[in-house]
């Protein structure tokens, strides 16, 4: 094979000679590579958007929620209501050393938070300071609730991003201000900017966090709690602890430990696994569709090259008669095929990258959307280009072998 200016001119000549045909053939490859890269980028962005809902959430978390029993137990009928109580927290803490954190939550939804003339809808949640081990806060101003707040039952609160934006539209540090939620005034001590979308008794950006003992008193909750959030030490699987946790709670509240409906145990580990599986499926489809489209495009290239070779029988015959070796012809056809796929494919890559950039821009225009990266990596683009070269060779193979079979006498015969 000879690689010089002429080889490239020969290729460019023969591709440019039939512009519309080269264009249409190239479009197949262009669309294929564009589809694959765009889908990969889109899928990745979507995955990031969805996983960002779990942002700041410990992956090893189990959340206990009481519900209605579905089995009769020890003389109790099914369909009985029961409630988690504060003693369950202590019991889990003592009996399950694998749990790093056990912390209760009281939540009340839909209350008006008022500051001056501004109002916002808030869900008030009573928590302990160690709740931050379950849902990591992003403190923008001030601080999180601490143990002293809890012990002294101070009327202080940490507000979510949305509440902050609604009540303090001018921005600035709101700490020290008193906001009214329901009948009570609380002093703001911190702003939490985390935007995860897992709502445990309310979305975090709409919540007003107050000390739990205070919430119990204000909302007349006695020793009841709504949720118990637990986090296991790393390396321990929450699903392994689940039966024992059920056993402990069931014994206390007299329901059947095998009664899965009586107590809902939300296991984030399983949720993460679910999302992972979902995206594995989505990825599989992306690759199937993308590669399939590229393949269809490449077969198109091969097909057209086949026709081209047939049309150029005389030309190839002349070349052979004046001294081109079969190898010269082979390399010419294959290089033409590579050039066609590579040029068309590069446009596909560029177009996909530009469109993904646009999509990223559009998504980020809505402040409610979490930040997500739709762009494909540089490595992936290079790999795509390499793949195209390879496919160009494959596409050129059949036409090239046909071209090689052309005898120089054919030049004289086909007139």
């Amino acid at each position: 094979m000879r690689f010089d200016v002429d080889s490239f001119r020969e290729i460019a000549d023969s591709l440019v000679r039939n512009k519309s045909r080269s264009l249409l053939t190239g479009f197949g490859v262009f669309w294929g590579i564009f589809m694959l890269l765009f889908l990969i980028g889109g899928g990745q962005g979507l995955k990031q958007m969805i996983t960002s809902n779990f942002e700041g959430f410990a992956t090893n978390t189990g959340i206990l929620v009481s519900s209605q029993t579905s089995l009769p137990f020890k003389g109790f009928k099914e369909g009985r209501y029961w409630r988690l109580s504060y003693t369950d927290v202590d019991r889990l803490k003592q009996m399950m050393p694998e749990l790093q954190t056990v912390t209760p939550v009281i939540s009340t939804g839909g209350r008006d938070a008022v500051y001056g003339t501004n109002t916002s809808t808030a869900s008030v949640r009573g928590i302990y300071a160690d709740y931050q081990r379950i849902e990591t806060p992003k403190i923008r101003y001030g601080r999180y609730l601490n143990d002293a707040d809890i012990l002294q039952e101070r009327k202080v609160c940490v507000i979510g991003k949305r509440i902050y934006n609604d009540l303090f539209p001018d921005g600035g540090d709101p700490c020290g201000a008193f906001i009214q939620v329901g009948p009570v005034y609380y002093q703001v001590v911190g702003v939490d900017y985390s935007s995860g979308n897992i709502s445990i008794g309310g979305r975090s950006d709409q919540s007003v966090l107050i000390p739990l003992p205070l919430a119990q008193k204000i909302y007349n909750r006695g020793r009841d709690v709504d949720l118990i959030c637990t986090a296991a030490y790393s390396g321990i699987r929450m699903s392994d602890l689940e039966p024992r946790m059920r056993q402990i709670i069931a014994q206390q509240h007299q329901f059947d430990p095998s009664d899965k409906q009586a107590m809902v145990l939300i296991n984030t580990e399983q949720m993460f696994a679910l999302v992972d599986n979902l995206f594995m499926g989505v990825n599989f489809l992306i690759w199937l569709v993308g590669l399939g489209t590229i393949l269809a495009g490449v077969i198109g290239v091969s097909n057209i090259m086949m026709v081209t070779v047939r049309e150029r029988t005389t030309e190839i015959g002349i070349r052979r008669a004046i001294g081109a070796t079969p190898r010269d012809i082979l390399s010419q056809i294959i290089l033409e095929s590579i050039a066609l796929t590579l040029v068309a494919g590069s446009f596909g890559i560029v177009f996909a990258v530009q469109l993904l950039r646009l999509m990223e821009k559009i998504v980020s225009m809505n402040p409610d959307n979490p930040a997500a990266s739709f762009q494909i990596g540089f490595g992936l683009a290079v790999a795509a280009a390499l793949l195209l070269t390879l496919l160009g060779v494959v596409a050129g193979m059949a036409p090239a072998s046909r071209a090689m079979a052309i005898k120089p006498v054919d030049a004289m015969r086909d007139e």
Partner: protein
Amino acid sequence: MLIELKDVNKTYNNGQPLHVLKGIDLSIDRGEFVSIMGASGSGKSTLLNILGILDNYDTGEYYIDGRLIKGLTEKQAADYRNRMIGFIFQSFNLIGFKTAVENVELPLFYQGVSRHKRHELAMQYLDKLGLTDWAHHYPNEMSGGQKQRVAIARALITNPKIILADEPTGALDSKTSEEVMQLLSRLNREEGVTIIVVTHESGVANCTDKIVHIKDGIIGQIEDNREHHASVFGTSTIMK
């Protein structure tokens, strides 16, 4: 002897076996201007293909300049064609999307000659054939005679041992035909190029110095025609 054929046989096996060449013996010396003449179906095209290493023969021997041409690989055949033989075709067979000078350069491209050098050489040959002004025109912008002269330049550029012309005037009118034949004869006389013309026209054959008559795959008469005494209708016709 530059070209020697000894008892060359060729049979085509497309369904019905067709014995085209039945023992051809032929010698052509350096610097000769020979025509091979015969009606269609006489085997002259097959003979030309064998002479031009475009086709294989079954039995016998074919030497160019003492070198046996038999059982060559495609690569060797291509190399021999490139270096030893220059082709002139009836339909010119120029590559339509290349300019005259690019067409003339092409054999040197396959020899791996550098771009600059082959361009220079191609321009020299075009100049020799009076086509300098047409060097950057495409074949479809030229007349038949000009195209054939480009083809002749392309055949000459590798400085081959033999020029094989297959009906070189077949697609030209009588005036240009005469010009092309005169050009070939001048090349033969002045440059000593060995030229073999395959034709069925006696007028064309008459321009050459030696006429080899081929009929039904056998060489008939070999006529010495240095006097160019034949009429345009050939010596053997009643219209002489």
